[in-house]
């Protein structure tokens, strides 16, 4: 199956600034996270893929070239912007119908799909009122609905949980997770929030200084920290360290209620429980330590070419 988005040696200069320096990679997952520090070239890359800036090198989106067929690409690709992007004086329904028509849908079709998209985004009640009076969470939902109206095959989401309180953030993430099944579109999620990426994405693209440093499964990103387990206890960390030491395991305390123990890849957990019983310590957590998203991210960024 060919990738949704392919890039080969893409360069883009803005005067003296070399924003994209030979970006090469492919995106083919259901939900792909797009990460990178500020200045890495993420926003330039998105502009390039949507056909809004010229660039050198090769890039295809859904098999089309954004350089020559920008509007055709945008016919089938949706974009939910990070910034405010609304038309004053219009209601959510009007804006979504407008969005649909601008993407080439006939009016009737646009009206039907606008309502469907607004229902999906959870904006049933307020959708006839002017957007000017909406809360932040509602504005985000309108932006999402407007990006979905024209039935895109790929949807770019730019910081979709910005400004949302924990409940709304949760709801937005749930919507995102469901979208590939329920709306039949693949998602590229551009965000700074690593835990969000961890939660919803199956693939990740990490950019740094205009190049793509990593592109692939999220599982491949995080290197195993070699069979180290994190053991949480109610209290008495030091007692357990000693007890494990007596059993031949060199454990180390990492917090007042947790320690790290190198147990190998398929260990016998009962060793730990026995050592805990001997030390009269209550075990409350037992888990293979994975490299955290942050550590993986920093590792990828840190390896300079």
């Amino acid at each position, binding site marked *: 199956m060919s990738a949704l988005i392919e890039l080969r040696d893409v360069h883009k200069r803005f005067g003296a600034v070399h924003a994209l320096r030979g970006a090469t990679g492919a995106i083919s997952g259901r939900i792909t996270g797009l990460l990178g520090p500020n200045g890495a070239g993420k926003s330039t890359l998105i502009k390039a893929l949507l056909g809004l800036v010229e660039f050198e090198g090769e890039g295809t989106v859904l098999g089309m070239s954004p350089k020559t067929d920008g509007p055709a690409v945008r*016919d089938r690709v949706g974009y939910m912007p990070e*910034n405010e992007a609304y038309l004053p004086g219009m209601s959510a329904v009007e804006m979504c119908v407008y*969005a649909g028509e601008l993407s080439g849908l006939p009016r009737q079709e646009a009206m039907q799909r606008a309502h469907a998209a607004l229902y999906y985004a959870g904006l049933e009640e307020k959708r006839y009122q002017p957007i000017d009076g909406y809360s932040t969470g509602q504005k985000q939902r309108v932006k999402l609905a407007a990006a979905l109206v024209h039935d895109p095959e790929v949807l770019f989401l730019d910081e979709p949980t910005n400004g949302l309180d924990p409940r709304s953030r949760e709801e937005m993430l749930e919507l995102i997770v469901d979208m590939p099944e329920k709306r039949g579109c693949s998602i590229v999620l551009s965000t700074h929030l690593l835990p969000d990426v961890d939660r919803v994405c199956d693939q990740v693209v990490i950019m740094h200084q205009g190049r793509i440093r990593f592109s692939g499964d999220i599982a491949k990103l995080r290197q195993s920290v070699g069979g180290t387990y994190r053991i949480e206890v109610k209290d008495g960390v030091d007692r357990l360290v000693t007890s494990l030491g007596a059993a031949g395991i060199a454990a180390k305390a990492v917090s007042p209620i947790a320690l790290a123990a190198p147990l190998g890849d398929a260990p016998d957990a009962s060793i730990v429980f026995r050592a805990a019983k001997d030390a009269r310590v209550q075990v409350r957590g037992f888990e293979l330590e994975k490299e955290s998203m942050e550590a993986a991210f920093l590792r990828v960024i840190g390896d300079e070419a």
Partner: protein
Amino acid sequence: MSTGAIHDLGYKRYLGTRRPQSTRWGVIVRNTVAQAWKTWWRFKMALGLAVVAAVVTGGFIYVSRAVAPGMGDRVVRFGIHGNLLDGIIALSVPWLCKAAFLVGLTAGAGTIAGDRQVGAFTFYFSRPVRPIDYVLGKFGGLFLLQLLIIAAPLTAVAAFRVGMSDSSDILKTLPLVGKAAITGVLGAALYAAVPLGLSALVQRRRNAIALFAVFYLVVSNIVYGIGIGSPPVMAFNMQAAVTSVGTHLFDVTIDPFIQRTAPFVWSLVAIVLLTAGGITLAWIQVRDQAGHGVGGS
């Protein structure tokens, strides 16, 4: 035997065709007009002014015809050389221009700057809309609005005038309607393009409106003043240009102490230049800024 069914309300892909790219600007035209029509105190107020001007002119025509038939002769009256009734129509043009200025101020000058300010550019250009679609769409919408302000009342009054003339004269006076329409169309294009172009120059909506107001009220008056000395320059005053087209087409001359008239050919040139200039200016500015909000800060 009875049956039951549960329908799948799930998502259905859109498998139909999409309208061709060239029709997108029409969507923007419709939207521009619909938005202007919404609040009653902007566009509709200007429309009211235009209607009043038309009604007053029509009333004058009616009274003149009813009270003094035979006015159709070429006489000099009230400073109008030529047919008085035709001249009255021509004199209504400045009033219609004032209404058009109001529309340009409220619906025209603020559009592009306002869009840029609230982030509507991101909305438009992350979709299959090209800068040219956007500009033509905005221009088209404003043009339609200005047609309602200038061309429609003018043509209506001209039609009324034709209707009020003696049956023997009807064929002679019929072209008046066409002439009124032409004047209206030129005026509408001019008053749509210029505020649009100026709107594209400035970042903030308020500043754009101020810019157009300054341009129209201050700069144009200076141009008018210079034009008293050298008439071709006067053609670049928007109101003077449109009025002079009207007076020329209606075959009347108006004494300078009532109203100075710019030369006809120069007026046409000015209208074309300013209109084309406005649209081009808007297009260049929008093209440069189209991708702005996309991709985040």
